[in-house]
């Protein structure tokens, strides 16, 4: 029985990684850059929702919408101010370092505004926990919502990319920026749109992360951000279903590692598995050919 409850806990944790990893993989797949500030955009989304609920007394759903708007604006601003000027002029390494800078910038701005004391986030999910086997197994409402959101987002993103003009433009940009520009696609606009979507997803991920683990501080996003990045690489970075699969697996491995090996070594186990997977399949579990990337 405890095996099953560990499995459920692993899936809950993994679903949070998965929803964060979707944003990572989306931006990487199209703009070909690692947005290391993604974890901190998530944290900003958490704070935006927290402020709406606690100070303005807004209903949870409205607060999520506000958080999405705030994060989308921030995402586009970051892209325009910090990344775009570097994309053409400098090496991709410069953009990577800038992303780390943006990450610290966001943390410290939030630290200035909200202070360092952690806030306890009230869950926005109101559906009750699912109790199985006489209450010995407990699937929390947040987990159900997180997994369903992951699946909905995954389907929506895939459809958006394959069915709409803007999505096709994204595909083109991800394959060859120069050629896409020659074909009349506005590359800058497309990349900005990618960041807007990625950051909007980050807001949803932030709210769900804080609902599952209700402690919000300026550093809330950094470690889950890194784990989600690992999940994205694990599943094959650039692949949207890969991010979902990678996230879930990462969560399950982490919890099993804690439960059956050592609670201190869980991270070491997670990264060891990652290394093995990358040795066997260098592109990650589902990352195969360029065409399959979004």
């Amino acid at each position, binding site marked *: 029985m405890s095996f099953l*409850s560990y499995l459920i806990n692993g899936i809950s944790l993994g679903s949070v990684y998965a929803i964060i990893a979707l944003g990572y993989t989306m931006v990487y797949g199209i703009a070909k850059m690692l947005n290391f500030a993604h974890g901190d955009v998530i944290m900003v989304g958490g704070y935006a929702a927290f402020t709406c609920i606690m100070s303005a007394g807004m209903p949870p759903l409205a607060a999520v919408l506000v958080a999405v708007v705030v994060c989308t604006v921030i995402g586009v601003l970051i892209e325009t101010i910090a990344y775009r000027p570097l994309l053409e002029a400098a090496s991709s390494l410069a953009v990577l370092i800038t992303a780390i800078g943006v990450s610290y910038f966001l943390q410290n701005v939030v630290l200035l505004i909200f202070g360092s*004391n952690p806030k*306890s986030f009230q869950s926005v999910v109101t559906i009750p926990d699912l109790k199985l086997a006489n209450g010995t197994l407990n699937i929390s409402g947040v987990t159900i919502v997180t997994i369903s959101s992951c699946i909905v987002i995954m389907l929506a993103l895939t459809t958006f990319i394959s069915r709409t003009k803007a999505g096709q433009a994204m595909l083109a940009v991800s394959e060859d920026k120069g050629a896409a520009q020659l074909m009349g696609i506005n590359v800058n606009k497309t990349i900005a749109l990618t960041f807007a979507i990625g950051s909007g997803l980050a807001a949803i991920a932030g709210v769900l992360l804080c609902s599952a683990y209700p*402690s919000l501080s300026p*550093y809330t996003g950094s470690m889950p951000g890194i784990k989600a990045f690992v999940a994205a690489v694990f599943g094959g970075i650039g692949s949207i279903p890969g991010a979902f699969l990678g996230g879930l697996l990462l969560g399950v491995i*982490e919890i099993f590692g*804690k*439960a059956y090996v*050592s609670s201190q070594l*869980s991270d070491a186990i997670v990264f060891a598995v990652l290394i093995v997977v990358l040795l066997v399949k260098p592109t990650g579990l589902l990352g195969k050919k360029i065409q399959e990337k979004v």
Partner: protein
Amino acid sequence: MKKLAKALSFTLAAATVLSTTAFADDTFKIGSIGPVTGPAAAYGSAVMNAAQIAVDEINEAGGVNGALLEFNPQDDTLDAEAAVNAYNKLKDWGMQMLLGTVTSACCIEVESYAVEDNMFLLTPSGSAVDCITAGDNAFRVCFSDPDQGAASARYIGENGLAEKVGVIYDSSDVYSSGIFATFRAEAENQPFEIVEDAVGAFTADSKTDFSVQLQKAKDAGVDLVYLPIYYNEASLIFTQAAAMDFSPLWFGVDGMDGILSVDGFDNSLAEGVMLLTPFSADAEDELTQNFVAKYQDLYGEVPNQFAADAYDGVYAIKAALEASGATADMSASEICDLLKVAMTEISLDGLTGTGMTWDASGEPTKAPKAVVIEDGVYKGM
């Protein structure tokens, strides 16, 4: 523009000259180092805020030995290297005494330099044993980790709180693992048993999900879980335990202090939590109430135990300076030689204990207080 810059630099130069002449020989310079930003910023800023309150109070009352106190807080972002840089910066500034550092790991590093310089060091909250063992220049205000671990084990044993005890601790943190080590050692002499299966460790990089540690404690059927950890993780543990209908007795240490000030935290989850702490903001003595009122007024928060330690620290320095008759024109080393003797002679009635005394090893002697959370406030036990 050029003219303006020139004018500015003149004013600046004049101001520097003025300030050095005004403060050159008639102030005691107290430096302080702690994490004002970064993941432990709550502790650093509490110390800096409270120390500033104490310094201002003392200056308003006319200072010490005819000289005012000057306080210079520096940020170390919880990074030992940054702490050493801050220490050197403070030395350049002319620091004569160090109130710090706030956290254990940084303190151990800084103490290794302070002992060479013979700089008086009083850490308000560095509770690891090694913070003050490198030399006789170092003292502390708070309890050391072993004190807390052993005291909690005795308290649980003597009051018959539990038979089977589980533990969740942070193995990557010297504070948490230090307390746990002495708790385990003292538990052997006590009538309760630590269930090995229910001893769950976590590390700084995996401290959001505690479901496994809680599940194991639940399966082992423990009736008390000892939490030698900080309140941020504890708030997550209480939430996750409630979700799995697990409600043992919870017993924390001073790091648990602050749990009730977490914004938005459902205080009913912490109902019945016991903790050992030297300071409770709800205590009714005049000293505590004045301090809490003043702190809330200035910083809009209820002060935690770190703030109280820092406040007492400044007053301990004042008492020692008075007892030794040190004057502000002495060098840091001369003051240190006087203070390390004077510290063992003073007795201080402060926020974190009455009749606090120190011995030459630098450890304080004061009684730990156990409190329990009832109806969202601390109640003495």
